[in-house]
């Protein structure tokens, strides 16, 4: 079983959107996948996955022994092999203990899960530290702006010192850069950092670039992970991300901007 943390340091960059889409993508490939919301106190993942009405027990109930893990895991309505462990909205983030999280992760392993995706809260406090503690791999979600890049850098440093792998001196957590909310047009116009700039600053391998799109908002309002929005660039970009994560070679898409031709400008895009 591999544990993947989706993290960023900064809030609002697309961690939960990415966790939902990425976990769904892994499940679509046939892997038995669990996605855990570590944002105790501010649960979001269940909304984005469209299962908020089916939450009976949550992560904290399991940690505190009030419910069994099997009772709290919610089966995804789109993909059979995907399960969601929602965060608690009422409990305090101190409910996350190292022993508790470890126990849940061990149990997921015995249940035969292939991947566990940990959706980290923003910041560098307890929730975020717990989300990355057991990670084998990390997807660092970054927006093309300076403060987001800086926070990602900070979280990379924390991964190198506070993860179990780091503390036990094992092979370091495998790091992946995911640039989200990317507008090739604004990069072209010099308003945004390019993905190359970001990669140069962070110096970790690039897993993908997700274009800025209204489809993401639409998807989260409908409670559908963005990867299911057939025909949108966002869904295709996330599918590419999953492929690259699984070791397939996919060229980058949606990163160059072509000025609309005269005809398009005259008649509008179709």
């Amino acid at each position, binding site marked *: 079983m591999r544990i993947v943390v989706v993290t960023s340091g900064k809030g609002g960059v697309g961690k939960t959107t990415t966790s939902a889409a990425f976990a769904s993508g892994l499940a679509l490939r046939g892997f038995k996948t669990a996605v855990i919301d570590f944002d105790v106190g501010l649960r979001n993942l269940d909304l984005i996955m469209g299962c908020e009405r089916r939450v009976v027990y949550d992560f904290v109930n399991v940690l505190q022994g009030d419910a069994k893990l099997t009772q709290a895991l919610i089966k995804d309505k789109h993909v059979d092999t995907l399960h969601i462990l929602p965060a608690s909205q009422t409990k305090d983030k101190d409910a996350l203990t190292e022993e508790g999280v470890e126990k849940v992760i061990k149990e997921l392993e015995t249940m035969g899960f292939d991947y566990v995706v940990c959706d980290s809260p923003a910041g560098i406090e307890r929730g975020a530290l717990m989300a990355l503690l057991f990670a084998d791999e990390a997807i660092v979600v970054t927006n093309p702006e300076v403060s987001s890049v*800086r926070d990602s*850098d*900070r979280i990379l*440093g924390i991964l*190198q010192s506070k993860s179990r792998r780091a503390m036990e001196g094992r092979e370091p957590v495998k790091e992946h850069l995911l640039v989200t909310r990317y507008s090739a047009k604004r990069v072209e116009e010099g308003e945004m950092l390019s993905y190359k700039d970001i990669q140069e600053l962070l110096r970790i391998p690039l897993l993908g670039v997700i274009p800025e799109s209204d489809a993401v908002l639409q998807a989260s309002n409908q409670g559908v992970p963005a990867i299911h929005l057939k025909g949108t660039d966002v869904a295709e970009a996330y599918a590419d991300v999953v492929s690259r994560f699984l070791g397939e070679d996919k060229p980058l898409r949606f990163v160059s901007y072509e000025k609309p031709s005269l005809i398009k400008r005259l008649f509008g895009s179709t």
Partner: protein
Amino acid sequence: MSEDVRFESGQFEGIVVRSPLVSPARLADVLHKRFAGTESYFGGEPAVLDFSEVSDWPEQVDWSGLVAFFRRLGLQPIGVRGVPESFDAALKRLHLAQLDATALRLEAVRRAEPAKTAPAAAPETPAPPPADTPRAAAPTKFIDRPVRSGQQIYAPEGDVVLMAGSNPGAEIIAAGSIHCWGPLRGRVLAGAGGNLQARIVATHFGPELVSIAGIYQTFENGLPPSIANRAVQVKLQIIQGQSHLLIEPIDTI
């Protein structure tokens, strides 16, 4: 497998805390500002607590409180210096070594050093090859990964060599010089113990702050193009008894 246990005399790296205070509460007050918010500021280095500057010894000292305080800072106190004999029993209970004798020996070695190098300035006597000198070279710290925002590299002795550069928000502090391959960003302080000869050398210069032996400069308005992202060295220059930082590009051909 050999089961030969050997006891060798050796020197190891550590931090010496010179404190004129022995009250944990007072120390916490004074150091609060310097280490504000950063628990475990150090990385578990062994430390010797040197109290030779304490002028007024109280009758009772909260030794376990002191040890706990320095542990919280991320140090591992292994011994003390300059403590009156009346505290011997208390120190033994806490398994803290009294290192005054060792300290004197080290001091003697250090004092002997200048005497050895001074005649080398005379024309006839060639300096002995460095390999023959008994002094252990100060260890150089090599850092192979980028130093990231919020991370700190601290070399209480010797130099630091950054093999993958540093990022904005990182902090690199060395008693000796700092060498950097790749982008040098963040706060970069060389000669931290007052070494005026220390330098900062970088292939891609762009820090937020540089300092040598406490003489510092910030770059609030960005770096001049002559040095920005270029190969640069920083050293101290003494003009009319005043120290200035000299920041200049290096000709790399």
